[in-house]
């Protein structure tokens, strides 16, 4: 996205500076015009170099690393061992990798769906309620948002704790005796469910605030007009709210997909991707390969595959984004 902004900025600079300089000058026109043409690029150069260095270089080095055998030995001795596509054949040929990849995609999809939906509902709710209640809700969400990831994870671990967890205690009190000593972390699916709930909880504030900002921007008279026309609540939503919120909704969905796909902290802190690797997602797999086993080359290959997979998932949005930019220009 940064690159897109840069092009945006470049175009007006180019257009406006050229005529301004050309008008008063007269004699050194030729030299001046070459210089003038180059000037914007020269001015942009420092920023461009910084961006390439900060973003381009790491991307390139991951690509390069993914074709190398880079374990602790090679790392400490500075050896460069090229292995071609070995790292890729190793991970893509591992059936466990595909299980993890599918699990990651399904997990991401579910978490994104639930969090965006919940965020949207809360955003719409906030428009309906009185100011006092809304401020309380907003402060509560702000606090949830401000909570450090690991602190929140610890709290969730305690809530779902087998012996001392408040959830099991409450369920037993309410009458579900079978939940006494129930283990919420006994299978990968239930562990991921708890982790997913935590991630949704953490994601809702941002989504709700963003969508609320979009929702209050919709002119009131459109709703009045809809009311006069006798539209039902659902029809009003379909005809007025939805078209206005759709671009924003697309953007936050896209962002959520990026964020949720690469979630590592909460999953690792919850049960280290266990039990039996049942809640291992791609970022966890990458950590196990790269940090635990010190196979940095393989881990780099996993990153490349992850980027490819993510690009595949978000291709629709990216296309739309590129097309709309072209339209504007």
């Amino acid at each position, binding site marked *: 996205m940064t690159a897109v902004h840069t092009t945006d900025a470049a175009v007006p600079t180019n257009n406006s500076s050229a005529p301004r300089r050309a008008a008063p000058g007269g004699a050194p026109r030729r030299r001046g015009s070459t210089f003038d043409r180059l000037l914007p690029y020269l001015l942009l150069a420092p920023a461009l170099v910084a961006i390439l260095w900060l973003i381009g270089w790491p991307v390139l080095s991951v690509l390069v690393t993914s074709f190398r055998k880079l374990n602790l030995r090679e*790392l400490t*001795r500075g050896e460069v061992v090229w292995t071609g596509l070995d790292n890729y054949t190793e991970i893509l040929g591992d059936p466990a990798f595909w299980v993890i990849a599918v699990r990651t995609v399904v997990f991401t999809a579910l978490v994104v769906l639930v969090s965006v939906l919940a965020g949207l509902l809360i955003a719409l709710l906030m428009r309906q309620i009185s100011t006092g209640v809304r401020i309380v809700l907003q402060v509560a969400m702000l606090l949830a948002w401000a909570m450090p990831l690991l602190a929140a994870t610890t709290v969730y671990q305690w809530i779902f704790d087998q012996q001392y967890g408040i959830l099991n205690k409450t369920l037993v009190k309410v009458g579900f005796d079978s939940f006494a000593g129930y283990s919420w972390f006994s299978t990968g699916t239930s562990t991921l469910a708890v982790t997913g709930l935590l991630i949704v909880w953490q994601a809702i504030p941002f989504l709700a605030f963003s969508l609320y900002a979009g929702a209050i921007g919709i002119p009131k008279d459109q709703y009045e007009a809809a009311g006069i026309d006798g539209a039902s609540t659902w029809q009003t939503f379909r005809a007025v709210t939805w078209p206005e919120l759709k671009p924003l909704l697309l953007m936050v969905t896209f962002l959520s997909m990026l964020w949720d796909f690469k979630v590592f902290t909460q999953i690792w802190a919850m049960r280290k991707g266990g039990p039996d690797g049942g809640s291992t997602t791609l970022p966890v797999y990458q950590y196990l390969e790269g940090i635990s*086993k010190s196979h940095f080359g393989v881990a780099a290959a996993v990153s490349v595959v992850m980027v490819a997979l993510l690009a595949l998932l978000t291709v629709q949005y990216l296309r739309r984004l590129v097309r709309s930019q072209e339209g504007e220009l």
Partner: protein
Amino acid sequence: MKGWRGLAVGAAALAVAVAGCGTSSDGGSGNSGEPKTLTVWLMDGSAPTTLTDALNKEFQDAHPGVTVKYEVQKWNGIQEKLTTALTSNNPPDVIELGNTQTAKFAAEETLLDLSGDVSGLNGDQWLSGLEDSLTWDGKQYGMPFYAANRTVIYRTDLFEAAGVTAAPKSRDEWISAIEKLKAANAADPEFQPLYLPGQSWYALLSFIWDEGGDVAKPQGSAWAGALDTPQAKAGLEFYKKLVDTSGTKAPKDADEATPQQMEVFATGKVGMMIGLPWELAGAVKANPELKEKTSAFPIPSKTSGKTAPVFLGGSNLAIPAGSKNADLAKEYLKLLSSKKYQDMLAEGGAVPGTSTDTAKLATTPLGKALAESAPNGKVTPTTPSWAAVESGQNPLKDMLTAYLTGAKPLDQASADANTALSKTLGG
């Protein structure tokens, strides 16, 4: 936006690798008399400051012009820090490595081969468990520093009240002690005779070794899991027997660190725990009343009168292969291996690595139990990939939880864990 963890790791790895390529131009200039700095990294809480102060002073006095730069490192994240440090142009000269991590660094040839210096470092008195952990391919890549092992820490007052007169000397006596404690405190629903969380896998190692089994066996150049052997299963069964007899309320899906078992012990509602010396110290700190009411005995064997083999936790000292002051570093290790400093280690409550004299350690009941069981100490498989078992997803923990909660029958739990372990050790 593409700030992926993997990118960062890859980038960092590459940056480090590039830095590692740099030539060390000023290495090897051995002019004596030139001021030199010997950088020593020891770990948090390993050697008492009285020892290090005296050691560094004596070393500096004996080597004029040499300054010892002594730095204390934190255990948390040490593997990553060492990886970075060992790849740098100017690594520290002496480092302390956890004994289960040593093989990983030795196998990658990042440490100096000390085979030729063993005898000068008191080699005939090295603690065998630690020596195993630093030996790779028949060569010694370090010197044992100190060790500690788990013992059964118990409440003397509760034992007396329950009519248990002597510390258990066999598994059967241990079980009956648990039963007596349970009966004597039946009125208190919060009471646990033995606190044993489901994933205390170092304790499990003891039971498996006691049965004659092992975690993994060398198979050619690689290691293969041995968790599906009858011996390993017998060890697991005994673990379950302890958990069931005690009726411990400890979580079955967590290890002894969540919650810290010493804190549970400090509540006073626990009769025994299988723990390390510092855990008793922590419990006493939280509840000073326990100071006079606690003691320890070695983990009993199934053979009456013997102690079960224990996992020897501890540290080795090593010299990075890139050290520019390797000779000075060897001198430093030599001084540290002398009896004077080994006695100071023992006094501090640890089993010394290069001295068989544990008289200074055996002055407390806990020290006595430590000294009794340490010679029977063993270590986890000496293979570079073991570090990945501990820092990644530990199959032993999954196995224990699955078996204890009844999620899987014994045979399946051990077979699954064995497959996972073999896979991690193989790669």
